[in-house]
C-alpha cells in the first residue's frame, strides 16, 4: 500500500512550488575559520597517520594545534582504551579535502574509544565513522564541510554504527548532505548538549535501541530530529528513544540531499520536507517531551509509518508501523512562513491538512495502522499518545491515506490520541562518563 502517484498533484502545484522555492533557506555558516590555523608539515601529518596505524591498547594520541591535510584515511583498527585528543575544535583541524579514496575521513574500531577536542572538515564521504565499538565517546568534536556549494558535501558528519554504549556530548555537526549526527544499528545511546545545523537531517536515530537525545539544539536543518527504522538491515528494528529538553527551531533549510528539482532517490532522507521539527518513521517506543519546537514551517512533529515512502515493506523481524509513542509537555510555536511544497510529504501536509491550505502543522499523524489489530483508527490501535496542554489550539491533523491520492482525508480530531503511555530507556551508565 502506498500513496498513489502524488506526481499529478505535484504537476498541478508546480508553478506554486516554484514561487515558494525561495522560502526554504540555505546556510553555509561556519563556527570558526580554520584557514587561519598554522598548516601542519608533511612530517607532522604522517606522524598522525602513523599514530593511528601503530596504536596499541591504552594509547593516548595527542594531536597538537594546527591544520592537518590528509590524503589518506585515519583508521584505528580494533584497539582498546584509546583516547584521541586535539587541543580544541578551533585549534586542531583534520581536513580530508585532499582524500582521493575511502568512504570516510576517520574510522574507529575497537572498544572504549574517546575522540575529543578537534574538528574534521571536508571528508568526501562521512566525517567520522565508528563501527563495532563498545564504549564510543565523541566529545567536543566539530564535523563540517566548508564548501560554499553544499551539493559537494559528504553524507554523515558523526556516524557511529553497529556500536554499543555511545556518548555524543557537546559536539557540533553541520552541513551534512544526510544526517549531521547519525546513530545507526546501535544500542545504549546518549546524544546531549550538541548542536546540529545546516544539515538535511540534524540528529537521526535509526534501527537503534535505548537512546536518549537531550539538551541539544537542532536548528536550520531540513529536518531537526528523526527516529527511523528501515527494513532489511542486520539490526532489523529498534525501540526505546527519549527526546527531551531540546531546542528544535527553524529547521527550514532546503533539502539538498538530491539536486534541486530532482526527485527523491532511494534514501529516505531525500523525502524529508524542509520545515520539519521531528519525524518518526516506523519508530517504536518514543517519548518526546519538554522540547521547544519553534518555527519549523511545515510540521512540528510528524508521526509517520513506512507506508508513506512507497517503498517495498517485506522484511523479516521488522514492522513498518510506528507504535507506542508519547508526546507531551512540548512548547510549540508556529511560523507564518509557507509550508513545504518541494516534497510529496510536504505537499500532503501543506495542501491536505485539516486546518486549511498553507497552514503550518504542529503535530500530524499519517493514520496508517495495523489492520489486524483494529477496524479503524479511532480505537488508537498503535497506541499513539499526545498530551499537550494547549492541544485545542495546536494544529493537529490526522490523515487517512489508505485510499491513496484519490481520496485523502484529514481530521482535526485529537481525542482518540489523548492518552499516556510508558517508554522505557536506561542510559544512566553513560551520563556519568
Amino acid at each position, binding site marked *: 500500500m502506498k500513496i498513489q502517484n502524488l506526481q499529478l498533484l505535484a504537476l498541478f502545484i508546480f508553478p506554486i512550488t516554484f514561487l515558494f522555492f525561495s522560502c526554504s533557506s540555505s546556510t553555509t555558516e561556519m563556527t570558526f575559520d580554520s584557514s587561519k590555523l598554522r598548516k601542519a608539515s608533511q612530517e607532522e601529518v604522517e606522524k598522525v597517520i602513523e599514530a593511528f596505524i601503530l596504536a596499541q591498547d591504552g594509547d593516548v594520541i595527542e594531536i597538537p594545534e594546527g591544520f592537518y591535510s590528509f590524503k589518506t584515511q585515519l583508521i*584505528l583498527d580494533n584497539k582498546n582504551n584509546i583516547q584521541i585528543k586535539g587541543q580544541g575544535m578551533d585549534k586542531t583541524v583534520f581536513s580530508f579535502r585532499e582524500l*582521493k579514496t575511502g568512504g570516510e575521513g576517520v574510522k574507529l574500531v575497537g572498544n572504549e574509544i574517546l575522540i575529543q577536542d578537534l574538528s574534521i572538515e571536508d571528508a568526501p564521504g562521512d566525517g567520522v565513522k565508528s563501527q563495532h565499538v563498545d564504549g564510543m565517546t565523541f566529545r567536543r568534536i566539530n564535523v563540517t564541510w566548508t564548501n560554499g556549494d553544499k551539493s559537494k558535501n559528504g*553524507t554523515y558528519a558523526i556516524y557511529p554504527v553497529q556500536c554499543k554504549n555511545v556518548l555524543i556530548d557537546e559536539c557540533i555537526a553541520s552541513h551534512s548532505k544526510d544526517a549531521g549526527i547519525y546513530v545507526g544499528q546501535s544500542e545504549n545511546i546518549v546524544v546531549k548538549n550538541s548542536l546540529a545545523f545546516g544539515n538535511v537531517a540534524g540528529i537521526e536515530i535509526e534501527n537503534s535501541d535505548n537512546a536518549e537525545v537531550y539538551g541539544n539544539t537542532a536548528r536550520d536543518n531540513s529536518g531537526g530530529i528523526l527516529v527511523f527504522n528501515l527494513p532489511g538491515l542486520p539490526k532489523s528494528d529498534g525501540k526505546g528513544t527519549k527526546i527531551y529538553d531540546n531546542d528544535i527551531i527553524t529547521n527550514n533549510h532546503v533539502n539538498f540531499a538530491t539536486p534541486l528539482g*530532482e526527485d527523491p532517490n532511494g534514501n529516505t532522507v531525500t523525502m524529508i520536507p524542509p520545515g520539519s521539527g521531528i519525524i518518526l518513521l516506523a519508530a517504536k517506543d518514543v517519548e518526546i517531551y519538554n522540547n521547544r519546537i519553534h518555527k519549523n514551517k511545515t510540521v512540528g512533529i510528524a508521526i509517520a509509518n513506512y507506508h508513506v515512502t512507497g517503498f517495498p515493506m517485506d522484511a523479516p523481524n521488522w514492522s513498518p508501523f510506528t507504535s507506542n509513542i508519547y508526546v507531551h509537555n512540548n512548547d510549540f510555536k508556529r511560523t507564518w512562513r509557507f509550508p513545504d511544497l518541494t516534497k510529496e510529504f510536504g505537499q500532503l501536509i501543506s495542501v491536505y491538512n485539516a486546518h486549511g491550505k498553507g497552514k503550518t502543522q504542529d503535530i500530524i499523524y499519517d493514520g496508517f495502522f495495523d489492520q489486524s489489530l483494529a477496524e479503524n483508527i479511532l480505537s488508537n490501535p498503535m497506541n499513539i499518545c499526545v498530551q499537550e496542554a494547549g492541544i485545542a489550539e495546536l494544529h493537529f491533523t490526522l490523515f487517512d491515506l489508505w485510499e491513496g491520492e484519490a481520496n485523502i482525508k484529514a481530521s482535526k480530531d485529537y481525542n482518540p490520541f489523548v492518552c499516556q503511555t510508558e517508554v522505557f530507556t536506561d542510559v544512566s551508565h553513560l551520563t556519568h562518563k
Partner: protein
Amino acid sequence: MLSVEFRILFGVLFLGMALSCSQKTSEEIERWEPSAIVVAEWPEKSMDQIDFANIPFKNLSDYGFFKGEVTALAPKDRVLPYAPASSLFTDYAYKSRFIWMPEGETATINPDEEGTLDFPDQTILIKNFYYPLDFAQPQGPKRIIETRLMVKQNGIWEAYPYIWKDDQSDAEYKVVGAEQTVHWKDAAGETQVINYLVPNKNQCKSCHNANEVMVPIGVKAKHLNHTIDFLEGASNQLVKWASEGMLNGFDHPEAYPKMVDYFDSKEPLELRAKAYLDINCAHCHRAEGPASTSGLFLTYEEKDPLKLGVFKTPVAAGFGAGSFKYAILPGKADESILTYRMETNIVGAAMPEIGRVTTHREGLDLIKTWINGMNVKAYN
C-alpha cells in the same frame, strides 16, 4: 547582459577543454621510464632463516621470496604461485601472487560453503601489483608498484605493505600509503595515465575483515579450485597444494566449492555476474564484513534477491545513491545504484571505496548485461 554571460560561459568551457586537453597530453607529465631501472639480482637469502619475531623487515629483499633478476619476480622453491578464478579489479594493475608455508605444515579446508582455509602460523601470502608498459606484451618491460604481504603469527594475520623504489631494485616497508603516477598502453594501444593509490596499512582491513578480524580473501577453495600453469605443468591448484603436502585431508576437487571466472563467456551470465560481485564487493558486503550495515550482501552464495539488491533501497549511501531508488532495478541497469557506484569515480560514491580511481569498463558491462536481462515480473 545575456551575451556577456554567454561569453563567460564559453570562456569557462574553453578553459575547461583546454585544461582537460593539456591533462591528456601525456608528454607533459613526468613519466617513469624503464631506463630508471637499475638491473639487480635478489640477494641470497634462505627463507628457512626468517626471523618471524622481527617482521616486518625494512626491505622486501630481506625475506628471500625471490631469486635471480629482481623485476622478474621469480619465486624460489616452495614459494608457490596461485591465482583466484575471478580477481579483484585494481585499476587494471596486473598481479602475481604467491604463498609460502613452513615446511611440514599443512592447511585445512573448512567444510563451509566457501571452502575457507585454516593456515598454519608463519604462512605468508605475497601479492605484487605491476603494470606492463604495453598491455599487448604483458611479459615485456613492467613497472612494479607495490607488494603486499599477509603473515600469520600466533593465529593472527597481519598485513604489511611494501612500496617499490623507482629504480625497481627493491621495495620498502611503508605504512602511510602513497600516490604514484602510472602510465601504460592499454590493449587498444591507447596511453592511460592514472594516480595509483597505495593504501595505508590500516586500509588493508577495510577489505580483509571478518567480524573485525583480519582474514585473507583469495585463498579459499572456491577461488582456487581450478587449473593454472605451474613451472612443472598445468594443475588444479588444490590438487597441486595437496601433492606438495600443503593440504590436510584433501579429498578430490569436486568435493569442494568452485567459483567461475567472470571473464569466461562460456559460463552462465548469472554465475559470472555473481562471481564478479563476490570478488569485488563481497569482502565487505557480507554479514561478517564492514558493509553489513547496508544489508546488501553480494557473495556468490547469496540467494535472497533482496539481499542481492533487487528492489532494495539504500541505507547510508548518501549521494552514492545517485538519482536512483534501488540497488538493482531489474531490467534497468542504468537506473540501478549498483552500476552507478561501479561507474562513478567520485570519492564517497565510488565502489569499492578503496582500490580504484578508474572505472572497470569490462566488469561494469558484465553487471549491466546481467541486470538488463533480469525479468521484473520474476521479482514482483
